[in-house]
């Protein structure tokens, strides 16, 4: 069966699939952490590597630009990591957030390999820093990149330059040509010029589809229109869809995305970390009708911020309003946008565009249900409401001390779960048979391990571990097939 070729502008000495010389040993599709780790690892094996990044240079690195740490196993204090974090505890933490929705062998592989990643990353020019202020709870489990994810991405791109890897920016892969599980090449648009580039093997590391609002709408309905995307606008899942259509085996719930509650005034894309609003545990959260809808004090914020995206998404117009008073104003991280501020609850309701009477009533009922007791902002203090529906089970203090502050909340989509199913070599399969020369790493295959929920810093661990595996395997295959 002849391979179907999409329409090609014959600009640059075009080579058709199956013809002409093989230009590269390894083609890496994507430009984030997993892609970079794969490209470095392949180039270190001596392979001739091409990396295709869809973004322009200043936006390179996909969602890795917005990360800040990776989760790392260690049996003794290691670099910036305190104490110890052993495999079983790590795996338990993963089981808790995924509720068992994980592939244990792959998960354990990621966990076990995370420790050597720390040293490897340093050897590639990544620097670590002490746990950021306000994140002391992560100093044992997560190693923070000095300067954050973009600094890590910069270090890796510099490493690629030193290794002589070819990098193209503004390069959108339109079609990955795979015939009988054998990869041949990619049709790519580079700065508006289309060409076909052959490779002996390919690593697919181009992320999820969270930035494709149409795709999200199919899963979420019209509600998706009001979603904000926390990361790169380039993760539209083109390559993922391209190969799923060609029969690649998939994993992860195709309709689900990971969403957190973020500031409703955040930009539609790429707002990143700064759009977080951490005041929910100390607040009451109202919907646009001025009513509460969930227990704001269910658990400490790091364990609950992830469910609030979904909770807000289920409210009318996908919007919520967190309201606090003066007592709580300094208890959480500063926000990027200033809060709406008022001297009374009715005034605040008016400024936020909420029904004044309902908000006043909801607040009064909440305040009346609050009980005397010790308030501890950093731990579950059991300070709960009485006879209130829904209850607030911790940090329930009356909202009664002006000035009052309000933050608009909207769902902020972080990543999607749908991806390729891979084996322990990061190899993609088609109809349950291993592909000959197709590997995948990062968000595009993370659904195997993170079936649901999220564990802070684990995305970067998966990307680093499987990026390195994929790069190594792809280079090995390329050298054997040469």
């Amino acid at each position, binding site marked *: 069966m002849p391979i179907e070729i999409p329409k090609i502008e014959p600009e640059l000495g075009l080579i058709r699939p199956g013809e002409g010389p093989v230009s590269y040993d390894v083609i890496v599709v994507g430009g984030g952490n997993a892609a970079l780790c794969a490209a470095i690892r392949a180039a270190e094996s001596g392979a001739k590597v091409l990396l295709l990044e869809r973004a322009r240079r200043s936006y390179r690195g996909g969602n890795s630009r917005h990360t800040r740490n990776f989760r790392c196993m260690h049996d003794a204090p290691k670099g910036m990591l305190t104490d110890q974090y052993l495999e079983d505890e790590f795996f338990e933490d993963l089981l808790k957030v995924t509720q068992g929705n994980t592939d244990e062998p792959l998960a354990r592989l990621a966990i076990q390999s995370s420790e050597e990643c720390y040293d490897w990353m340093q050897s590639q020019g990544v*620097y670590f*820093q002490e746990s*950021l202020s306000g994140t002391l709870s992560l100093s044992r489990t997560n190693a923070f990149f000095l300067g*954050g994810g973009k600094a890590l991405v910069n270090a890796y791109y510099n490493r690629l330059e030193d290794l002589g890897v070819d990098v193209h920016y503004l390069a959108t892969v339109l079609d990955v040509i795979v015939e009988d599980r054998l990869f041949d090449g990619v049709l790519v648009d580079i700065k508006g010029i289309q060409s076909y580039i052959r490779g002996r093997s390919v690593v697919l590391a181009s992320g999820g589809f969270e930035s494709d609002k149409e795709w999200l709408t199919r899963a979420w309905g019209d509600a998706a229109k009001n979603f904000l995307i926390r990361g790169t606008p380039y993760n539209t899942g083109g390559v993922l869809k391209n190969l799923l259509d060609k029969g690649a085996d998939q994993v992860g719930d195709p309709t689900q995305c990971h969403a957190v509650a973020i500031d409703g005034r955040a*930009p539609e894309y790429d707002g*990143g970390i700064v759009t977080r609003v951490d005041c929910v545990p100390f607040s009451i959260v109202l919907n646009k009708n001025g009513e509460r809808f969930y227990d704001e004090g269910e658990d400490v914020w790091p364990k609950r911020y992830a469910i609030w995206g979904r909770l807000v998404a289920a409210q009318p117009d996908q919007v919520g309003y967190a309201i606090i008073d003066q007592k709580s104003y300094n208890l959480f991280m*500063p926000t990027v946008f200033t809060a709406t501020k008022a001297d009374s609850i009715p005034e605040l309701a008016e400024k936020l565009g909420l029904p004044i009477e309902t908000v006043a009533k909801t607040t009064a009922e909440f305040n009346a249900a609050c009980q005397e007791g010790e308030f501890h902002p950093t731990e579950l203090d059991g300070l709960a409401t009485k006879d209130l529906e829904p209850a607030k089970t911790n940090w329930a203090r009356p909202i009664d001390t002006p000035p009052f502050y309000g933050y608009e909340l909207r769902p902020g989509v972080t990543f999607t779960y749908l991806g390729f199913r891979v084996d322990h070599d990061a190899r993609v399969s088609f109809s349950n048979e291993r592909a000959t020369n197709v590997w995948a790493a990062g968000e595009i295959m993370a659904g195997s391990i993170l079936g649901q929920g999220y564990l802070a810093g684990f995305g970067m661990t998966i990307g680093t571990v499987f990026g390195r595996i994929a790069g190594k395997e792809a280079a090995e295959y390329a050298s054997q097939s040469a």
Partner: protein
Amino acid sequence: MQAKALEEANRQLAICNACRYCEGFCASFQAMTRYRSFDDENIIHMANLCHNCQACYHSCQFTCPHEFDLNIPKALANVRAESWESHVPGSVAAEKIQSNGWIIALITVVAAIMFGLIGNIPWISDENFYSLVSHNSLVAVFTPLFLGPLLILFIGLYRYWNTVGGDWIQGRDLSAAFHAAGTMKNLDGGMGQGCNYENDDRYSQTRKWAHHATMYGFLLCFASTSVATVMHYGFGLEAPYPFLSLPKIFGVSGGILLTLGTSKLLYLKTKSDPKLGVSDRRSGEYGFILILWLVSTSGLLLYWLGGTAAAGAMLNIHLASIAAFFLTLPYTKMAHGFFRLAALIREAQMAKA
């Protein structure tokens, strides 16, 4: 100070403060974590802690073309330069000189001509240095030239100290500040990897070493002059001094360091990205480095030329460059050393609180 630079810095810092990924780079970001929102004095303090290492810019997810359009190195550089200009008496002169580096050159040329005319200098020297120009006339010219600008600078520092709410200075504040300044701690990138400056997003130690050479070279030259003054007045030992004397050892080594350091800093500046530096004052920065270079290089040449016919002309150039350097001292980037030290002392006070 103009509100514009402060407003822009405030806008940007509010975004930074919700992120804090750069916390490990330098003292500015560590200071930031103490604040929830920023008053003018907080911003001025952070701006004077900033060494323009540019690491935060290259690490930032939110730089242009992102709509947040963060450029902290530039925002703080603008506040910093304005803070010097607005705190020293004679703000207009400061602003003019900072944004018109050629003024420093003009002053040098005028001074050289004046020395030439007034000094009535014989072109052939004998053994005695002061046959070229009398010691007393040197002192008469340079003492007010030196003390006047220093006085202006210290008035500026005093005002600055009030602005940032400084406390009484204790020994440990000083030792922390001198340690940070002496090691250029805030140019080491936080983990000793160096800064981004001349080589895009790659880290490098070059600027730190060039600055070390410049700073320590300058201090050695200053030590040379100070020691010579003491020898002259205290012990009646007049120049010229033998090669193995303190003034010569300090002066020659300092001069070489200063010439090498400023040459390298000049080169690095041509490689740096003007978009990440101060607005409208780049010529003043060049002018300042050049005048330092001229002071040390003319001094070295003067020593090397010794008793030749060219020595007189070189002496004119040397003295003129020193005069221009001192005359403009509170109004050039030289101010950064003093204000930086004040900021480091203040930071030591606040960090321990």
